[in-house]
């Protein structure tokens, strides 16, 4: 089962290393991991997508809590939440493909943010599933590079992860 774990951690060097070290040492799987400072510069917020049985995920959550710099851990998958991911995708856009690619980008509400005679860079945000669909909707031969950020998540409604 796929779980999205969100945590607030002290913004100190080595903090990311500790978390990734924990996952690899105990054999837990990281599907994606993003981290960035919060509105409080001394704290970072990390979103990890992992998969495993409920027991494993319970252990993961407990082990994360045990890390000295981790302030709070929440399993977003336990209730309604929002997930978003950013993708920058560089495509070959020459000749008759340009029109088609622009149409695709519009359909997926993506934005073309870089233009040359032969290439476009499209910026797309959405759920992991939406980004996956965009990539498969395009002709594979046209894709030059995809750069994804990994998902970040936040709970719906008035539940707040705050320190």
């Amino acid at each position, binding site marked *: 089962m796929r779980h999205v774990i969100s945590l607030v*951690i*002290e913004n100190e060097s*080595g903090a990311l*290393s*500790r978390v990734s*070290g924990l996952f690899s040492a105990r054999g837990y799987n990281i599907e994606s991991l993003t981290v960035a400072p919060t509105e409080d510069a001394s704290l970072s917020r990390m979103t990890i997508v992992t998969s495993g049985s409920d027991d494993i995920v319970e252990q993961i959550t407990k*082990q994360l*809590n045990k890390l*000295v710099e*981790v302030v709070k851990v929440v399993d977003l998958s336990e209730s309604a939440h929002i997930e978003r991911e950013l993708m920058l995708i560089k495509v070959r856009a020459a000749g008759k493909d340009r029109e088609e690619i622009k149409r695709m980008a519009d359909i997926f509400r993506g934005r073309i943010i870089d233009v040359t005679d032969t290439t476009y860079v499209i910026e797309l945000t959405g759920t992991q599933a939406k980004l996956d669909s965009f990539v498969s909707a395009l002709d594979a031969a046209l894709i030059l590079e995809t750069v994804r950020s990994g998902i970040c998540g936040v709970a719906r409604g008035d539940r707040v992860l705050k320190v």
Partner: protein
Amino acid sequence: MVLTGAEIVIRCLQEEKVDYLFGYPGGSVLYIYDELFKQDKVRHVLVRHEQAAVHAADGYARSTDKVGVALVTSGPGATNAVTGIATAYCDSIPLVVISGQVPSAVIGQDAFQEVDTVGITRPCVKHNFLVRDVRDIADTIKKAFYLAKTGRPGPVLVDIPKDITAQKCEFEYPQTVSMRSYNPVVKGHHGQIKKALQLLLGARRPMVYIGGGVVLGDAADKLTALVRKLGFPCTNTLMGLGGYPATDRQNVGMLGMHGTYEANMAMHYCDVLLAVGARFDDRVIGSPAHFASEPRKIIHVDIDPSSISKRVKVDVPIVGHVDEVLGELLALLDGTTERPDEESLGVWWKQIEEWRRRDCLKFNQGEELIKPQFVIQKLWEVTGGDAFVTSDVGQHQMWAAQYYKFDKPRRWINSGGLGTMGFGLPSAMGVQLAHPGSPVACVTGEASIQMNIQELATCRQFRLPIKVVMLNNRYLGMVRQWQEIFHGNRYSESYMDSLPDFARLAEAYGHVGIRVDKPGDVEGALREAFSRKNDLVFLDFQVDQTENVYPMVQGGKGLTDMILSAEDL
């Protein structure tokens, strides 16, 4: 007052009331050693290998309720310390290890004696720090001691670059420490404790299972009072020896892979299990699937939430400090006249006594060959069951655990979680320094003792009258046992060749060495050794090579599938 980083380090240790600093100098810590030289509040113990420095600090911590402290240099000093740090980590021992680091300007440039100490130790410490500013030293060391000692204890490493120890700043030792990201739970949830009491009072075949947490949490008194009040059987893990008096009738002995028959059977067939400060380790419960096959309600008291329901699902988890939780449980019990059903308890005890009658630890001491179990038994008698006993790893360790009956906590000092050979002698040094004048025995084997044999020099320098009780069977005994039982007697690399004359080796280091070949001489040799209050006495007992540790639960098998003797093979 303006001080250098090195001065600050020493002042911090003084503020933390550190008696002994176990260490080994090197380039990166020269400024610290200079300041150490200029004072005498913190006494330095020079070891002969950094691994021993950490083991000694570890033995010191295990036998007292204080934090053990070690100082090593960068590079090889730190990497030598890793085994000691991992040993402490696996058994949750409070240590602060200070390591020197190359100057800040050259970190990351492959400098002389540089390693990424923080990176290397990250998986085997409770926490670690790299100090980047001299103004952070005091705060970091205060935090290090706080982290080491609170919650689930563990080793904390502080890495300090050399230039930082030479820089100056204003020094003030913080009076308090608080970390928003670290708040260990102390008091247990009252509702859960009440639930636990109800389960215990309604039990028909109850069992109390205690581990290292009872010893580390200094909860032996409350635990003993509770078990006696309830009249329940109590078993302890290897790490919990002494948490409940071994000579008490209610103690059914150690459980697990080499536990007693009665302990393992009672653990398996109980209907209510109270687990206190123990973590259902694989050496203890055997196959988790088999363990879960009998229905029982489990109450688990532990300070670390991640230990609860990690391997075995429990019904009443109680996160908190064992001493606090047991105190509350006792208060609740005192506040009610309800008591467990005497009749069911009587029937349960009858069953346990029947299992006890198997006398699974019986052995036969003949005239010719010394049995290793006999040596431990005699050690227990000669020391009145009251000595501090450290151990190395292997068969001798299991026999020491089985035949030395510990009535008090913090007397049995061994590496349980990591199982580090070479732990016995250096840890005994720490224990002896913490308890001058008390008898300290190091039970070891001829293979384990050689891993840190150089510490005989440290013992001489600091006049530590440790009694080394070496069970010499000329084999890597535990390996040989497994090779006999599971690998068709193919003793691959388990024969100890080219052994030194240990008695002469001990004498070469300035100690007393005695070799014992006959059973009739065992008691006399031990009495002689312990009567010498100022000498380290190295006893080389030539023991029967063929002895195996029984009972034995095979890896992957259930607790009830014990091999009880050679006949069962």
